[in-house]
C-alpha cells in the first residue's frame, strides 16, 4: 500500500480534503453539509495518513491530543450556548446573530464548529487508539 504515488498524492489530498471539510462545515447552514459531515470528512483526511505514515505524523499534524480536540469542541459548543445567556439572560442555547457586511454570523456557527471538532476528536481518539496499541 505504501507506494511512492500514494505517499506523494497524500500530501495534496490531505490538504485538499481538509479544506473541503471546512468548506462543508461553513456551507452547511444553507446547503447540504455542516459540522458533523465536515468533521467526518476531516477525519477521513487524517485517516488517509494512516496508510502512508505513522500515527506520530497525525499527532504532529493535529498538534494536540485528539481527546483534547474533542473536549475543546464540546467546550466551544457549550460556550456558544452560554453567549446568549451572558448577553441578555436568555435561556441556554438561544441563538444570537450579528450582521457583518451583509453576512449573518451567529452562535449556531460556533456551535457547528464545536460539533466539527468533537467529531474529529472522537474519531481520531478511537483510530489512533486502535492503531497505536
Amino acid at each position, binding site marked *: 500500500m505504501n507506494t511512492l504515488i500514494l505517499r506523494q498524492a497524500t500530501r495534496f489530498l490531505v490538504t485538499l480534503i481538509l479544506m473541503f471539510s471546512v468548506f*462543508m462545515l461553513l456551507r*452547511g*447552514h*444553507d*446547503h*447540504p*453539509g*455542516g*459540522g*458533523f*459531515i465536515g468533521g*467526518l*470528512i476531516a*477525519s*477521513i483526511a487524517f*485517516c488517509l495518513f*494512516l496508510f502512508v505514515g505513522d500515527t506520530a505524523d497525525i499527532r504532529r499534524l493535529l498538534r494536540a491530543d485528539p*481527546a483534547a480536540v*474533542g*473536549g475543546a*469542541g*464540546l467546550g466551544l*459548543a*457549550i460556550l456558544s*450556548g452560554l453567549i446568549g445567556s451572558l448577553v441578555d439572560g436568555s435561556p*441556554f*442555547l438561544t*441563538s444570537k*446573530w450579528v450582521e457583518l457586511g451583509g453576512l*449573518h454570523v*451567529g452562535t*449556531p*456557527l460556533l*456551535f*457547528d464548529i*464545536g*460539533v466539527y471538532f*468533537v*467529531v474529529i*476528536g*472522537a*474519531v481520531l*481518539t*478511537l*483510530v489512533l*487508539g*486502535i*492503531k*497505536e*496499541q
Partner: protein
Amino acid sequence: MGAAADDSCVPSYAKAVVALPAVLFAWFCTLVPSVSRGESVAWSVAWLPERGIHFAFFVDGLGLLFALLITGIGSFILLYASEYMRGHPQVGRFTAFLTAFMLSMLGLVLSDNLIVLFVFWELTTITSFLLIGYFHEDATARWSALQGLLVTGAGALAMLAGFVLLGSAAGTYSLSEMLASPTGLADHPAYLPIAILVLAGAFTKSAQFPFHFWLPNAMAAPTPVSAYLHSATMVKAGVYLLARLSPVLGGTEFWAVSLTAAGGFTAVYSAAVALTKKDLKQVLAYTTVMALGVCVMFLGLDVESDGMRVGVIAAVTFLLVHALYKAALFMVAGAIDHAAGTRDLSKLGGLRAAMPVSCAAAALAALSMAGVPPFFGFVGKEALYSAALESPVALLAAAAILAANLLIVAAALLVSLGPFTGEVKPMPRHPHEGGWQLWSGPLVLGCVGLAAGLFPGPVFEWLVLPAVKSITGQSPDYHAALWHGINLPLALSALTLASGAALYLARGPVLGALRRLIRSLPVTGDRAYDACMAGVARGSEELTRLLQCGVQRRYLLIVFATIGAALSGTMWAKGSFALPLRPPAVSFFDWTLAGLIVASAFVTIVAQSRLLAICALGVVGAATALVFLRFGAPDVAMAQFTVETLVVVIVAMVLLKLPGFRGEVRPSPLGRVRDGLVATVVGVATTLVLLAVTLETPQMWLRDYFEANSVAGGHGRNVVNVILVDFRALDTLGEITVLAIASVAAYTLVARLPRRRVRSRRAGRRKAAG
C-alpha cells in the same frame, strides 16, 4: 486552651465556627416574643417559579421550637466536640460536617416548601452518613453509616413521591399556604398513597418500628454526633414532619391508628430492649427510640379535652423534655468514655468521686428522664398520662405509656446510678473529670430541665403552646403547672416511679429473662436488613451475569431481541399492522438498489473471511446512502457515506490485528437458527412499521414550522442543519457529549489491551540495544 493550637491544624479563625450556633440561638431568641403572639417571619426567593418551588422559609411556633433546640443544643455540642475531638487529625473535617448538619437541619425545620424541605431532609441524611462513618477505618462504622443512609434514604424517596402527590393534590408546594386553609385531604382519592408515602419517610427517619434498627447502630459515630443527631435533633425530623403535616393529613382514622400503633409499639419494645443493653450509648439509643415512639404515638392520639388537643400538647412537651435530658446524658456518656476508656456498664462503677460535676449533671438529667418532681420530665409525664386517659383507647394507651415509662425509669437509674455509684472498679484508664467544655453542656441542660419544671408557665407560653398552635391551628387555653392536685395522672406517676425503682432493684433476674426473650426473636431488623442487602447483591449479580456476559454476540442478540420484541409487541398490541392496498410505484433504479443491498447482505452472512464480510457490509451502507440521496435527504446521505468509509477503515484496521476466523467458536446450528430468527423478526417488524408509517397521513405542522422559521429565525436555508445547530441544539449537545465520552471510553478499552505492554517492552529493548 493553649495546647489546642499545637495539636490541631485548624486555623484559629476557623474555630470561631464554634460560636455560630450560639449566635443563631441568640437571634432565634429575639423572635420568641413575636412568634408567641402568633406572628410568623417569612423569607422567600424564587427558585423554580414555573413549578411553584421557591426557596421559602418561615418561622412559626413549631419551627422556632425546633430551631431553638437545634441551635441551643448545637452550641453546647460544638463546644463539647472541640474538646472531645481534640488532637484528632481530622477535627476540621468533623466540625465542618457537624456545622453543615446543623444548617441543613435548620433549613429543614424552617422550609416553607415541600421540595426545599426534601432537599434539606436529604442533606441531613448525607451529613448523618458522613458523621456516623466518621471513623471510616472501622468496618462497623462504615456498615452502620451505610445502613442509616439506605434506610432513611429509601424512606426519603418514598416521601418525595408523597410530596409530589401532596403538592398536586393540594395545588401548592407551600406549607404555609396549605396550613392557612387546612381543608384536609381526607376525602381526596390520593389521600391513602400520600399518607403511606409520607409516613414511610417519617418512620424511617424517626426510627419507628419496623425501621428502628438503624438508630442504635448509628451509635458508631463519635459521641457528640450521637448526642446531637441521633437523639436531640435529626431523628426528630420525622416527628417534626408528622407534626407539620398533621393539619393537612391528620384527622383520619388511618392517620390516628398508624401513628398510635407504630409509636406505642416502638415505645414499649425499645424501652424493654434498652434495659438489656450493657453499652451506655446503646441504652441511651434505645431510650431515644422509645421517646420518638412516644412523640409519634401522641401526635396520632387524636384527643380533645376542653377543646384542646391534649395529645399534641403532650407530644410537644415530651419532645422538649427529651431533647434536654437526652443530649445531657449522651454528653456525660461521652465524658465517661473519654475519662474511663470504656462505656460498658458492667465495667463502670464508683466514678462519683473522680467525676463529681459529670455525676451531678447526669443526676439532674436522669431525674428529669425518670419524671421526678419538680423536674420538667415530671410535667411532661403528667401531660402524657392525662392525654392518654382522655383518649378513646384510654386503657390501652395508658397501659402502653405506663409500661414504657416504668422501663425508662429503670433505664434512667441504670445509666445514672450504674457508672457513678457502687465500688470503684478497675477501668482501662484512670478516670478524671474532663475539661469545662465536656461538663458545662450537660450541667446547663440539666439545670434547664430543673428550671423548666419549677417554672413551667413561661416555657409553655413561649415555646410549647406556640408550637401546638402551629400544629392544631388553635391557641389552647392550657395551664401548665407542676401541681395539678391529686388525680389519676399523679397516681400513675407515683406508680411509675415506684415500679421503675423496684424493677431497677430486681433487675438481675428480670433482665436475664428479657435478654433471653429478645434473643429468641426469630427476626431482627439487622438480620432482615442484611438478608435484604444480600438479596439485592445476589440479584444484581445474576442480572449482570445474564446481561454483561462479555460475549459480543450475546450482547447483540439481547439488544436485537429486545428491539424486535418491542417493535412487534407494540404493533401487535395496537393492531397497527397494515399493508398498502396497491404496491407503490418502484422504478428500475430502486429495484437495482434493493437488489444490491440484499445481495451484499447475503454475502456478509456467508463470507468466510472478515475482510470480505466488512467490505460487503460497506456496500450495504453505501447503497443505503444512495437510497437517502434518491429520496431527497442529501445531508443524511453524505453522513452515511462518510461514516461507512470510516467504519470500513476502522474495522479493517481492527481485523488486521485479529486472528483469522479459524479458532473462533462459531455458534451451533441451533444457535444459528436462533440468530436467524431474531434477525428475521427485527427485519420484518421494521419493514411493517415503515409500511404502517407511510400509510398514515403525515403530520406536516412540524415541517411547516421549521420551513417557515428556518430562514427567518435561523438565518439558514438548510433546514436540517438549522434544526441540528439551532432549533434542537440541546439534543445535538447531548449527542456530541455522548460521542466525546464514548470515544474516550473506547480508547481506554483499546489502550488497556495487554498487547500494548508487549510493544512498549519491545520498544524499551530496542532503545536499550540502540
